[in-house]
């Protein structure tokens, strides 16, 4: 829907900031029940505006975002739970609509990645300390150099934390 504008921007080589300022949630969209409205806002922040680049429907002034905000409110008025509202959209648009992807086989690496990085980094540090201590005290005899080198090389591998 915003595609023509996008293509035009690309053609003329503009630095294209696809963010439209303000003017997302409109007063006439809002529910009179403040509790429900607060829930709608919270849900809106979790849902991706599909035609925008990376915005939630709560932040976007795109037409589709407006329709989706109305839909979220309709579902809430119909008595859906937050999870049901999100599922309603996932059924139609897929997991892509969720800004926080669900934990499943496809996102395993994403969700476990941070913990993996951490363990790797801690493991590297532990090996570093072990290698050094095995080498003895402050005098750092020749033998420990080799050991520490090994440990350090191991430690360095937690650099993959930044690359994987």
């Amino acid at each position, binding site marked *: 829907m915003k595609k023509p504008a996008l293509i035009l921007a690309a053609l003329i080589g503009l630095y294209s900031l696809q963010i439209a300022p303000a003017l997302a949630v409109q007063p006439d969209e809002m529910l009179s029940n403040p509790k429900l409205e607060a829930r709608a806002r919270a849900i809106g922040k979790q849902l991706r505006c599909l035609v925008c680049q990376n915005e939630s429907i709560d932040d976007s002034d795109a037409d589709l975002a407006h329709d989706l905000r109305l839909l979220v409110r309709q579902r809430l008025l119909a008595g859906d739970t937050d999870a049901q509202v999100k599922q309603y959209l996932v059924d*139609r648009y897929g997991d892509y609509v969720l800004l926080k992807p669900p934990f499943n086989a496809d996102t395993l690496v994403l969700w476990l990645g941070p913990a993996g990085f951490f363990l790797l980094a801690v493991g590297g540090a532990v090996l570093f300390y072990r290698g050094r201590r095995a080498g003895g005290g402050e005098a750092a005899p020749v033998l420990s150099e080799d050991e520490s080198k090994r440990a350090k090389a191991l430690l360095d591998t937690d650099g993959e934390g930044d690359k994987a």
Partner: protein
Amino acid sequence: MRRIAFLPVVLFVVLAGFFGYRLLLIQRGDSPSFIPSVMVNKPAPDFQLPPVFAGTPGFSSAAFKGRVTLVNFFASWCIPCRSEHALLSGLKGQGFQLVGVDYKDKPEAVKAWLAREGNPYDVLVADENGQTGINFGVYGVPESYLIDKQGRIRFKQTGPFTPEAIEKDLLPKVAELNK
């Protein structure tokens, strides 16, 4: 242990491979903003829409039964729809009914547009608030859904049809569904 020092560069090469492959996909026309539909192979949503032209029939999802249907979401304000429109006109008698859904449009605007561009649709209905579009998983126009005789979505075209897409994707699917 020296080998571990090679890990960063190995991982970087893998990363660069991903980047290179992605760039290749972009060059082949696969944009990162394309979203595949999850509705394919699922029953089409229930809906009932009023006609654009008073006096002509509306359309409801019950009418999918027994016929292959192509549901084409379009709008008069949509620029890419124009190129597709001419192609759709050439699809009469290809073994499916063509249902046009005028998505979030003003009746006068679409009437004027059709008067100018021609009306290729067997049935033409209006989705004024875009609700049916959302139920189909529409995120931009044009989008088209091919629905089998049991009312199941079997194929989705995101963006305008091209002659190649019609030859390679649409018509073989239609033939298969008509078997």
